[in-house]
């Protein structure tokens, strides 16, 4: 018997009980929608994060204090009191694969110009930072070695800061007040950076850059910096070299962390892949529930149509013919459900991607998963009712009222 005929027969039977068919498909629809949406959203978001991290420039190695005994607290403070400017110089000089290395201190402060004020992130660093993080100078210049050597009170502004403080005025040469804690310091604007946008958890455009020495000597009196950022020729080699040097200075390897951008990318990929699979797996459970729904309705259908099965057998239908008829019916139901779910899942991921700001991706993978899973569910859960139908004794089936 021709399968296309059976598909037609199956569609007709599904159309007779539209509401019932729809309700039976609902589980599959929801399951496939969820799986497709989760995979698509997960891939889109991961891709966006990867792109923004890559935009920081390749070969970025970060040396930061390790967190011993949890986040914050005394242990974390202890760990931060390690990095001096001299250590940074030493790391730079003695690691052949470190091309450039700058210290940095992250802080926050209020910037004022005339009536305007802006709460900005202050990064105290040195010349070279702009190259490591691929910043482009829009106007003026970045920090230079002389700024650092002479503790100059100069500042380079991110694009948001400029807009908020100066509007359309040219900020170069203007004096801005940086208020940090109890202190008020007057800085001269020497440069403006081009917009870079949101990267991961912080926005580069909200940052301002001052010489690290100015921060340490004039503002906080601290002897330590928060971290070092380095441009490596070969990230893996650079990490080895830096770790070797640090191990000699600081015996406890838990006190510091040396990570490359590649490592962070890998970690993000790994974590997000795990998350996607976990969530998709949970969504997959509803596919299972959907399958049980289909099996249930197929069992009801087989009982209701016992007489029809008897008639078909009397007319010469073989077991195989009845089996295929009911499997096709279950398959059609689950595939139609899967197709609806695919469309809905795609719609959901397009909507979410608009809010998230990434390009919606409908990968072949999620289409294959959606269609593959729904047909597998139809097959697995359709076989038992179909076998029940195929095994019916023709005489008993004909007598069924």
């Amino acid at each position, binding site marked *: *018997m*021709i399968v296309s*005929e059976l598909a037609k027969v199956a569609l*007709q039977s599904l159309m*007779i009980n539209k509401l019932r068919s729809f309700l039976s498909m609902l589980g599959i629809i929801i399951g496939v929608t969820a799986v497709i949406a989760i995979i698509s959203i997960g891939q889109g978001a991961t891709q966006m994060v990867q792109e923004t991290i890559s935009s920081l420039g390749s070969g970025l190695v970060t040396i930061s204090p390790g967190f011993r005994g949890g986040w914050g607290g005394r242990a974390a403070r202890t760990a931060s009191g390690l990095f001096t400017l001299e250590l940074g110089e030493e790391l730079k000089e003695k690691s052949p694969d470190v091309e450039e290395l700058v210290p940095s201190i992250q802080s926050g402060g209020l910037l004022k110009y005339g009536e305007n004020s802006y709460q900005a992130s202050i990064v105290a660093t040195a010349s070279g930072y702009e190259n490591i993080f691929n910043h482009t100078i829009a106007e003026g210049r970045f920090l230079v070695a002389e700024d650092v050597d002479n503790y100059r009170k100069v500042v380079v502004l991110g694009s948001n800061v400029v807009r908020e403080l100066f509007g359309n005025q040219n900020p170069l040469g203007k004096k801005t007040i940086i208020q940090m804690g109890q202190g008020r310091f007057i800085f001269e604007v020497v440069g403006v950076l081009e917009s870079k946008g949101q990267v991961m958890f912080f926005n580069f455009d909200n940052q301002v850059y001052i010489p690290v020495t100015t921060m340490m000597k004039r503002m906080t009196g601290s002897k330590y910096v928060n971290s070092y950022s380095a441009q490596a020729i070969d990230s893996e080699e650079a990490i080895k070299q830096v770790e070797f040097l640090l191990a000699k200075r600081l015996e406890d390897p838990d006190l510091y962390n040396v990570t490359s951008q590649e490592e962070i990318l890998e970690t993000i990929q790994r974590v997000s892949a795990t998350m996607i699979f976990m969530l998709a797996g949970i969504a997959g459970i509803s596919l299972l529930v959907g399958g049980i729904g289909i099996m249930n309705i197929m069992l009801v259908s087989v009982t209701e149509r016992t007489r029809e099965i008897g008639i078909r*057998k009397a*007319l*010469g*239908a073989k077991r195989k013919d009845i089996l295929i008829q009911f499997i096709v019916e279950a398959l059609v139901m689950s595939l139609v459900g899967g197709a609806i779910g695919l469309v809905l899942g795609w719609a959901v991921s397009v909507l979410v991607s608009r809010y998230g700001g990434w390009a919606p991706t409908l990968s072949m993978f999620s289409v294959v998963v959606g269609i593959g899973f729904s047909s597998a569910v139809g097959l697995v859960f359709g076989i038992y009712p179909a076998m029940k139908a195929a095994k019916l004794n*023709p005489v008993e089936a004909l007598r069924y009222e």
Partner: protein
Amino acid sequence: MKKPFIQANDIWKIYYMGEVEVPAIRGISLEIKKGEFIAIIGPSGSGKSTLMHILGCLDKPTKGIFYLDEEDILKASENRLAAIRNDRIGFVFQQFNLLARRSALENVETPCLYAGKSRKERIRRARESLLKVGLEEKRFSHHPNQLSGGQRQRVAIARALINDPDIIFADEPTGALDTRSGDEILEIFQQLNKEGRTLILVTHERYVAQYAERIIHIKDGRIDSEELIAQ
């Protein structure tokens, strides 16, 4: 020596209700020649329907010997029985047993579908078959619930005929019909018999049985008597 077309020797059909044996057919032997018109008559519960199911290859006897056109049916596989039913046997039932959601034409097509015929061939044969039993062409697309009892039975006969079977089994074919349409149906059967088809009619009505050439009386699962009808 060539065996008769239908040869049954000491056929038993026993149902098991738990431990209890309930014999529905208790040792029936009969021979039917090709082209005969037989009526099997008996009160309800006599086993006549069970006998028809066995002779129609819908069911196998518990024991006995049953040859259909020299083929040992007791040894035939389930698939083989399905093929025989499809190819050589046509059934007409009291309650018509049409597929409710299919048109008259689609109902008639069904055995052809299982025979693996192309759509074109199926439609050609179904139309031919329906015209032969006298259903008006405008009713071909009607569903069974849009047809009268007589028309439904015509559709059922057309369906039984579509694969050009050797034998037609009719189980109380007039039971759900008024006298007039019942007579029309019986005349169609007579016509089919004249064309050389073997007809086995199961009924409990003497009047209906009289259309046959030979009447076999069944009682309590056994053949009670046989009589020949002079036409």
